[in-house]
């Protein structure tokens, strides 16, 4: 059975993630540099980032916590106070029971929408990549080809979970935008990443499936042309 080497698998899955982080980090850094230029220490920086993820109606409290932190002297005390506030900013207390429990639940979820829209699509391919490498290693160690029925079922479930986590990035990103989260770039980056990872894998599969240098460089022992879907499946074969 043909296979891609572990190094190439890692490269294929890590490339879009690296691009995502570089772009997101660059945008975030540029935005911070263009901001008010207030000197920040770590407690404040962490808390300010978390406050940026809070829903709009909770940001007043986030600003209050930041202002309170600014008034505290002493490194240890600032760390303690900042840590407590960070927890509240990330996990705000449940609002009073309203007449719309679904809306209340959505509001509680909203702080993480932008962050989750990036986290889930990144985690999915990473887990797939790690799982593929581990299974390949197990097969090589046991000198077997193909997976058992039980393992195939597990792999199938893992693939479905990974695909779902990638696909969830889009609705989560849109939810983050609808919730008008302050760090909109998180939602935008998550949506774009989620939407582009499947076309990316498709293009990669075309490149890998093509005979010649690319296939040879990818370590394929079977240089014959393959259908794209078959080539995608080959990505996950070891």
């Amino acid at each position, binding site marked *: 059975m043909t296979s891609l080497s572990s190094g190439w698998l890692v490269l294929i899955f890590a490339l879009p993630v690296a691009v995502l982080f570089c772009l997101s980090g660059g945008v975030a850094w540029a935005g911070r540099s263009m901001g008010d230029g207030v000197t920040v220490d770590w407690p404040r920086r962490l808390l300010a980032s978390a406050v940026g993820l809070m829903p709009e109606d909770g940001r007043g*409290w986030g*600003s*209050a*916590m*930041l*202002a*309170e932190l*600014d*008034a*505290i002297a002493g490194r240890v005390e600032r760390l*303690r*106070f*900042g*840590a*407590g*506030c960070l*927890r*509240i900013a990330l996990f*705000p*207390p*449940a*609002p*009073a029971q309203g007449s719309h429990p679904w809306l209340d639940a959505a509001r509680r979820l909203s702080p993480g929408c932008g962050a989750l829209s990036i986290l889930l699509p990144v985690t999915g391919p990473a887990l797939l990549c790690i799982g593929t490498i581990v299974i390949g290693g197990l097969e090589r160690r046991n000198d077997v080809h193909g997976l058992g029925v039980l393992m195939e079922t597990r792999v199938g479930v893992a693939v479905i979970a990974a695909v779902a986590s990638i696909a969830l990035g889009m609705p989560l990103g849109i939810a983050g935008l609808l919730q008008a989260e302050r760090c909109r770039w998180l939602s935008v980056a998550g949506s774009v990443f989620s939407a582009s990872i499947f076309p990316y894998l498709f293009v990669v599969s075309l490149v890998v499936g093509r005979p010649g240098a690319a296939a040879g460089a990818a370590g394929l022992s079977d240089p014959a042309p393959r259908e794209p879907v078959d080539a995608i499946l080959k990505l996950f074969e070891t």
Partner: protein
Amino acid sequence: MKRSRRVSPQTASVVVALAAEPQARRYGYDLCQETGLKAGTMYPILIRLVDQGLLETNWEETHAPGRPPRHLYRLTASGLALARDLARAAVPATEAKPSRPHLGLEGAK
């Protein structure tokens, strides 16, 4: 105000601290120091008290240059009534152990 509401010892300690000087506006960090509560406990209490109309907030008008204005807290009339109820119930909030979630008075939720 719902008088059937039960109040946690931590919430009671915050209300009592604020009721000690009903007209004074207090900072959140000062309340933390006075009650011994951590910020992670204090702010949910403050948020819920505000949601329930027991506490009023405003931003300080004069503040140190280079620093953002801080939040100030003061009990509303309903909050003061709750404080009186707590005093009447003679529940010694300061004796309450934090590990005991409720004193027969439960979370302000």
